[in-house]
């Protein structure tokens, strides 16, 4: 298991150093600095030297690193590092050098609780916040007075939820967020189009509520035999994965999603869908290189969804050759600007209505070069977010909440489809 945990800044200075096992010394951190931080060409998140392996994740301006001396589970180490990042965000909103320095004592306290001898332990934020807080006085009180409640919570079967949650108004918010992945060839053929979905829930519910959740999916998950036909608007999910709180046994037997939610915000499930994806944007590109010193672009964008809906923050990143000296771009909607540092024309459209179309025409002037390799034409990226639209067609059918006190609860559902570097069109 994990022998040591470090956080480094970009200069390679140690911000946090915790050794869990005696098989390492603190000076091992120098090896990481030399091999990874000072190395301009790091080609793997895992580096093994002798029997020592370094696992690192870069986030903002810090490196979060786990070190092992055994044949550790690589998946576990990275999941732990990810979890540490999530917990840090929850405690001090952003994990970077400044926040680590501001909270180093708290981080040590957290580490002591979430990992023991390199074995990750309870890492449920809700439970941790019962007794590890940014205000030491509060932690002190909690530990003194509620210790047995905390220990039962931290080791029990529903370690993610306290039993004494109370709200005056019981509400649950469900956010269905889909990241659309698209790879389209030069010829306009869809090489891949799929959706990574996330269902986030913010549960503000009293007591110990039993929830049942239903979607318009036909779960194609290796069904044995066919279970009769379902309605036509049913969505095929290729796979889904659930938060710790969902009863997987129940899902396996009758495909129902039932759970006792953690208090507050959490990711209830993740899913993938690959069939019948509604692509929210269509792009027609015409890019020519009429001479060695010029590239001409005509990019035509169409919002391919209902005209009642709107897309926000649409950004197209259109690559230009490395030797571009300047670009003249004309657009009907939004603003287009050449960003020399990134070799791109960035076309920003703050708001675009469904079914709307718009066009960019541009000319890039190229510097003369003696030996010019063919321009490799990286794909155009489209970033966007479209509210109340799911590219997979997924809808929430119901969310039922049962609590023994029998209170009424209000539920809200929102949908969002977005892309952030994942919507790529070759040209």
């Amino acid at each position, binding site marked *: 298991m994990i022998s040591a945990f470090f956080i480094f800044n970009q200069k390679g200075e140690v911000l946090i150093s915790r050794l869990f096992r005696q098989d390492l010394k603190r000076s091992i951190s120098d090896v990481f600095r030399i091999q990874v931080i000072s190395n301009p060409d790091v080609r793997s998140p*895992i580096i093994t030297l002798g029997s020592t392996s370094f696992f690192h994740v870069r986030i903002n301006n810090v490196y979060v690193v786990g070190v092992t001396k055994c044949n550790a589970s690589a998946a576990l180490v990275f999941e732990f590092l990810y979890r540490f990042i999530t917990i840090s965000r929850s405690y001090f909103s952003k994990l970077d050098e400044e926040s680590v320095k501001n909270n180093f004592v708290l981080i040590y306290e957290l580490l002591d609780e979430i990992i023991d001898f390199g*074995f990750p332990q309870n890492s449920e934020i809700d439970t941790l916040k019962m007794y590890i807080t*940014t205000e030491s006085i509060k932690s002190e009180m909690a530990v003194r007075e509620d210790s047995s409640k905390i220990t039962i919570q931290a080791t029990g079967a529903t370690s993610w939820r306290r039993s004494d949650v109370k709200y005056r108004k019981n509400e649950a918010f469900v956010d269905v967020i889909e990241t659309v992945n698209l790879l389209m060839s030069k010829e306009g053929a869809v090489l891949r189009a799929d959706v990574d979905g996330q269902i986030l829930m913010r549960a503000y519910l009293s007591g110990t509520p039993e929830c049942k959740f239903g979607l318009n999916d036909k779960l194609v998950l290796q069904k044995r035999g066919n279970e009769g036909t379902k309605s036509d608007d049913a969505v095929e999910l290729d796979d889904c994965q659930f938060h710790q709180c969902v009863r997987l046994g129940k899902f396996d037997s009758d495909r129902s999603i039932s759970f006792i939610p953690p208090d507050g915000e959490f990711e209830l499930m993740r899913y993938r869908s690959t069939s019948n994806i509604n692509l929210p944007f269509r792009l027609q590109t015409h890019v020519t290189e009429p001479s060695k010193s010029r590239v001409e672009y005509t990019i035509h964008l169409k919002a391919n969804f209902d005209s009642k809906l709107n897309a926000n923050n649409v950004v197209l990143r259109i690559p230009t050759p490395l030797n571009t000296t300047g670009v003249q771009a004309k657009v009907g909607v939004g603003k287009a600007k050449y960003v020399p540092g990134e070799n791109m024309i960035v076309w920003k459209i703050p708001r675009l209505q469904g079914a709307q179309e718009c066009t960019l025409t541009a000319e890039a002037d190229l510097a003369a070069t003696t030996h010019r390799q063919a321009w490799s034409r990286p794909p155009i990226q489209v970033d966007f977010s479209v509210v109340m639209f799911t590219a997979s067609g997924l809808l929430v059918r119901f969310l039922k909440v049962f609590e023994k006190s029998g209170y009424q609860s209000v539920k809200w559902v929102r949908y969002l489809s977005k892309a952030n570097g994942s919507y790529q069109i070759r040209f």
Partner: protein
Amino acid sequence: MADAKLFTRGKAQELRDELRGANDKRDKGFLRKKTALKKIVANMTMGNDMSPLFPDVVQCMQIQVLEIKKMVYLYLVNYGRLRPEEVTSAIGGFLSDCADRNPLIRGLAIRTMSSIPLPPIVKALIDPLRHALQDQDPYVRKTAAIAVAKLYASEPGRKVVEREGFVGMLRDLLADHNPTVVANCVAALVEISERGDDIVLKLNGNVAGKLVAALGECSEWGQIYILDSLLSFVPQTHLEAEQLAERISVRLQHANSAVVLTTIKVVLYLMNYMEDEVLMRVLERKMGPPLVTLLSSGSEVQYVGLRNILLIIQRRPAILQNEVKVFFCKYNDPIYVKLAKLEIMYRLTREENVSEVLAELKEYASEVDVDFVRKAVRSIGRLAIKISSSSDQCIQTLLNLMSTKISYVVQEAIVVIKDIFRRYPNQYESIIATLCENLNVLDEPEAKSAMIWILGQYSDRIENSDELLEDFAFTFKEEPAEVQLALLTAVVKLFIRRPTAAQELLPKVLKLATEEAENPDLRDRGFMYWRLLTSNPTAARDIVLSDKPVISTETDRMDKGMLDQLLLQTGTLGSIYHKNPNTFIRTAKARYLPDSPALNSSSKRHLITPSGVSSTSIRSPPSLPARPISSIPTDTESPISPNGGSSDPYGQLSDLEFVNGGGAGYQTDIPRPRGADEDLLF
């Protein structure tokens, strides 16, 4: 909290004064003490030696403020080892905390003490630890379970654990009603059995069943520990294996990728003991989607997933067989993800999807990263050999790429085209002229040898082959052995085919090889050709121009037995490097698929046991060169792989190891541990 201002280097002496100075009554809520301790912790972090402050920090143990206590404990864990004489002064404080009425404090004390493996501390810990293992609070018990494993890791602790029967107590705790306690016990027992020579964890069906029952209530980490321990259960009947696999397969839907991969590891392990083909197909179908889902995770986990997928699809090709598209590279994937995807794409390509894959590979060949481009080009050549119906398309693509005149693309293409010539004799020789146009860009030994091989092999069809070979021979002495050997053989071929053309060149090269070369292989080969040509020219012709064995990709996978063994490492470092952990980690033990009456015949046939391979199977050597570079240009060694296990030069390409350092700079991106022989001295 803005503690950043405390995160500055200070002198031990000043910090000591600050800590002592904080000792007056006016220090309300010990605020000044806290600040001083925080500065000490910060300096400790920065690597500033704070151990001289030991006595002063131990003094603070008496303050009943949790935050201070935690900092003091952290300090003790860090410096206790360095101050064995003074650490005894802390024992009193520890013991009173071990008996605190607050379970969190009891847990904290046990956790801290067990992290300082010095004889006096270990001795003092015996009684509290025994109590803690039976504590009424689960938090204390779960901490105590790990503490036993901690003790066992140190020399003094190990003796105590054995003498006091702590392992037995852990075993009893497996029946605890609290899932977290059970999970930590399992983790501790697995750890101990991996360290100890005489303690082996063995689970029977009954215990395994109970552990699985606890899975549903465990934290995600606890699930991993329990799932991992199931490898210590050896099914005695097919039914046992089948039932267990079905029960744990629900874990494939868990959000934590380590839970998913560990589940896959156990299911794959259990499949060796199954006979029900239908169920095995069902399980294979269940494993596919979660594996693909790993690709939606962070890049690091994607990488772990991809390296594992590459192993898994070799053993169980039905998983993911229709999924090649999800492995297409995104432009902004990190390089390690791209390279891992490329391998999988090659393996999943079949006649039906080869056009799509080729179009992708061609696209990749125009990207920026040199290694990635090279591997993309190489993959095109491998596909030509794997799928004969696609060879025309592949050749066309390669020629297109060569027209870019990018040096490394051209060289890579020539290397693979040579193999395509071997695979499909008399089909593509018309392109030789195109290849010859690129002679001047060749500067890598592998590409040079490939070109030289082509020149020798087709010396009768290439009009000026004698001149071209002579050009190469001009720098004979400066070339690496690989090129020299190729050149020698090529010149001999030229002589046999067109004796007059090589009349001057042959004696010159033979003389260089036999008289001036330092390399014994080269010398020996030179002498052999020389004698062969002088004693029996007919035999020379038969031998040198003999039919070459056909290259194919029928045995495209690693040996099944090895795969079964490697798959026991699913999700671990061993699965990243495709190596058994004992070969690169000093303390790791080898793991073998255990034999049992339930082991199915297919797995049994390839079974690798600690004493070697079962008699029925012939194992190919683990590090068979991916590309028999030296054997191709030499022609005198007839079979491609010496043991006949695999007749395919690409057969072992699972990790693209080009063993004799063929392509310049290739080694860098094959994931592998470095310097496995010596350990880091830190």
